[in-house]
């Protein structure tokens, strides 16, 4: 290993260590703030569950039988005692036990929900990114043509439509009026889970509407941002020079895309970090049991441990995505690596 390589490796290690230290402080801060906020949210979860059961037609005796024991699951002690207990448990990766799913560990609930979130949100994010970026370049290059206008218009329209409107519309069309796709749930329970065609096919069928909804909802932002970036880069000297030198169109396109995509890359990395927050509306509309739905349910049921755990996972996702984005940015843009002197 040469001295220069060793120096670079050392600098990278210091940089990573700095990022990780800052990330840990950030996680501690968010965990502390969210702990206090969560504990201060008004509402009696057991009373709410009891009254909800009456609403659903249970008799008072049935509802009492079902909820009496839950009082034992409520946090006890002063706020400080609860906080020190919480932090102590966090150090052991123990997020506590759920109140809304009594007796079940929060980590288990979050793990289960995270696996369902990854499929639609990650697929939707990547699909919308690829589609939006490709169409964005096309719309910029053909900006004076009808197709370019049409693509830009589609981006503006979809960017302005709230995600729940798209979701409800797709459900109404493809699950109710023309029922070719399932309206809810992650997979048909009749198929045995595993690597079999029926199960995988059902998984894909159930993911179609959530993924398409997510893709359509995010696509507008990507195409508009990419088009704007490409138009800016198109006027740069190096593109003109490349064209004058008679470089192949593919190479010019690569120069163009690589420079225009840089700002979007950070947003993509953050979007992937945000995927741990799930997509509340999409998961709610399609009854997709991801982290977004888990978070909403934990808030409505005042499940303090689950709320805290979900917030923490989302925070960690974003902090890690930030670090990764920052490190990778220097890989794809040499100017950042050398302090902007390249």
């Amino acid at each position, binding site marked *: 290993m040469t001295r220069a390589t060793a120096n670079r490796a050392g600098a990278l290690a210091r940089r990573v260590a700095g990022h990780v230290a800052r990330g840990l402080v950030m996680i501690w801060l968010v965990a502390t703030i969210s702990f206090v906020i969560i504990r201060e949210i*008004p509402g009696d979860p057991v009373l709410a569950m009891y009254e909800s059961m*009456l609403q*659903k037609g249970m008799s008072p*005796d049935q509802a009492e039988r079902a909820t009496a024991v839950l009082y034992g699951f409520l946090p006890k002690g002063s706020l400080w005692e609860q906080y020190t207990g919480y932090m102590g448990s966090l150090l052991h990766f123990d997020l506590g036990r759920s109140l809304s799913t009594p*007796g079940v560990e929060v980590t288990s*609930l979050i793990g289960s929900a995270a696996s369902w979130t990854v499929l639609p949100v990650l697929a939707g994010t990547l699909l919308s990114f690829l589609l939006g970026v490709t169409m964005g370049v096309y719309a910029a290059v053909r900006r004076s043509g009808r197709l370019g206008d049409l693509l830009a218009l589609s981006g503006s329209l979809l960017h302005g439509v709230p995600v729940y409107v798209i979701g409800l519309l797709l459900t109404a069309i493809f*699950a*109710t009026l023309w029922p070719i796709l399932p309206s809810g749930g992650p997979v048909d*329970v009749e198929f*045995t889970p595993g690597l079999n065609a029926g199960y995988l096919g059902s998984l894909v069928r159930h993911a179609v509407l959530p993924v398409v909804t997510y893709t359509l909802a995010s696509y507008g932002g990507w195409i508009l941002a990419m088009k704007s970036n490409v138009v800016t880069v198109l006027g740069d000297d190096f593109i003109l020079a490349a064209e004058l030198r008679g470089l192949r169109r593919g190479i010019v396109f690569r120069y163009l895309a690589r420079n225009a995509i840089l700002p979007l890359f950070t947003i993509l990395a953050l979007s992937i970090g945000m995927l741990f927050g799930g997509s509340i509306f999409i998961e709610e509309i399609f009854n997709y049991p991801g982290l977004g739905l888990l978070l909403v349910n934990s808030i409505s049921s005042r499940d303090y441990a689950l709320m805290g755990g979900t917030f923490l996972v989302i925070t960690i996702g974003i902090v890690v995505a930030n670090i990764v984005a920052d490190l990778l940015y220097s890989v794809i843009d040499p100017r950042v690596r050398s302090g902007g002197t390249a």
Partner: protein
Amino acid sequence: MKRLATFAALMAIVTATATACGGAAATDAGAEVDVYTTIDGTKQINASAPINPFNPVGSVFTGYNGMALAWARNHPTDPNRFYPALARSWTQSPDGAQVDIHLQPEARWSDGKPVTSEDVRVSIGLAYTQGGTAYALDPKAAGAAADVRVLDAKTIRVTQGANRSAAFLANLLSTVVVPAHVYGALLPRGFWDTLKVAQHDRGPAGERAKAVITGLADKVIAFSPEQDVSAGPFVLERVNPGAALLRRNPYFYNSRAIGPDKVKVLNYTGNEQIWNYLISGQLDNAPFTSVPAAVMERIRGARGSQVITGYSPVATSLAFNQSHKPYDNVHVRRALAYLIDREQVTRIAAPEGGTPAATTSGIHAKAARAWLGDGFAELEPYRLDPAKAAAELRAAGMKLRDGRWTMPDGSPWKVEIHVPASFSDWVSAAKSISSGLGDHGIDATVLTAADYSLYLSELAKGEYDLGFWLIGLGPSPYNIFQRLFGQANGWQMFGGRLTHVPPGTGGNWMGGPRTVEVAGEGLVDPGELTSRLNYVSPGEQRRIVGVLARIANEQLPAVQLWDYVNTQFVNTSRYTGFPPDDSEMLRLSSGVWMQLGMIRKRQP
């Protein structure tokens, strides 16, 4: 152009694939003739929860793979009427203290083992760890089971403690039964001796014993059997976050009565999803679901869709905080009752799921007629009457200035009606009421709470003047009136003793007076009368119900707005033989209907 053509071809392939998938689904659906599809109205599916009936969200579905000793009939006045389930029959001693339960002789668990008295005994032991109703540990608690004795393999005797309750039989028969060979190990050695100490010793030993038993609650609730062992008509095959699949239990004691081979219980995140299921004809049955009129039309339009209606012992009311001025004055409460057009409110808020309350009695009209007879017609109906309302407001000292009513001292009066934002029917009703009051010179506004939990919390703290409140929760007369003269109004049962706490404390948000003057009865304590409904004779119960209904009608702690209608949805495309309108089975699940010999495959 070539690229555009390629893109178009790709899109065509995607569309064709999607259509093919749909076709496959249709084929699947065609092959699923034996699968009965429904939802569980009492809870959403939680695939992470254990297959355990003691867990409130466990993957146990009442009537399918969850079994009780018996199933409650939906009778307007008698809470002790039941359909047999694992208990084939039962006999109660004349004084109500002792109940002998005779189990179904053919009852077996899904692993082939017989259901025995020991299973019931273990289930009762486990129920004690959860507390409440017949299994309260407090020796002074009314209607608690004091002794459990196995008489033979199929007969068990349960005796209630000295502080008896009329609800004992109903609570006992509602006991969920689990297999002793699966759950028995949860009860530690010496459990029954510890229970005796907890029930009878009033000293430190008793407290320690209570702590031991309640300390088991966590373990019981978290217990997760590897597989379902059910004595019901079905056994859980699989559950995922979207649905649960149950297959037929060949050992069920009345297996021949069961039509479907499988039951699929679909999950939902809200009513909209249930509406979609119903509109697309996916569900064979959905229990009561609140449905707006426009959606109801679309559901009715689905092939095979039918609506069954029946009695639902619940009513919605607008309740007052009587510790807040001017609602401490009965004339103000009466004035507001005369200004609420219940017909219109119900038409707007619950056109399909409610009938306008005939009056305020604290009881659903059907039960009220049965309890009160001719006395029901003698209650003041509080029909829309602005003149009477104005007279009542004047009697309360309120002033009319420039066409608007003010407080007696001339300061502005604004009626603030609180509702949880997520209850669209209550929000609509509140808006209708506030608009109606505005038309009659009373400033009114609707304030929404972000969610139900927050609403209940603020309500209990006494922060609201007026709020929506469920009342008339029958059939037990105690349950009916404890909503008006129970904890929410200051009366609390603690250690077998009834106490009354001041408004704003202990959940007393209604803030009514502890005693009221009743014509012919003198000074009456409504909370004390309500608690007596637990143990007095049926004749005395009827008399007390009459007095309490009059108090509710005259004092108006709440204005009864509409009585609920149990609106069930069924689809007869695949199955027939559903219960008729007004059946006493309607509040039970389809699984129970099947157990009782209903629901057959439609013959081609």
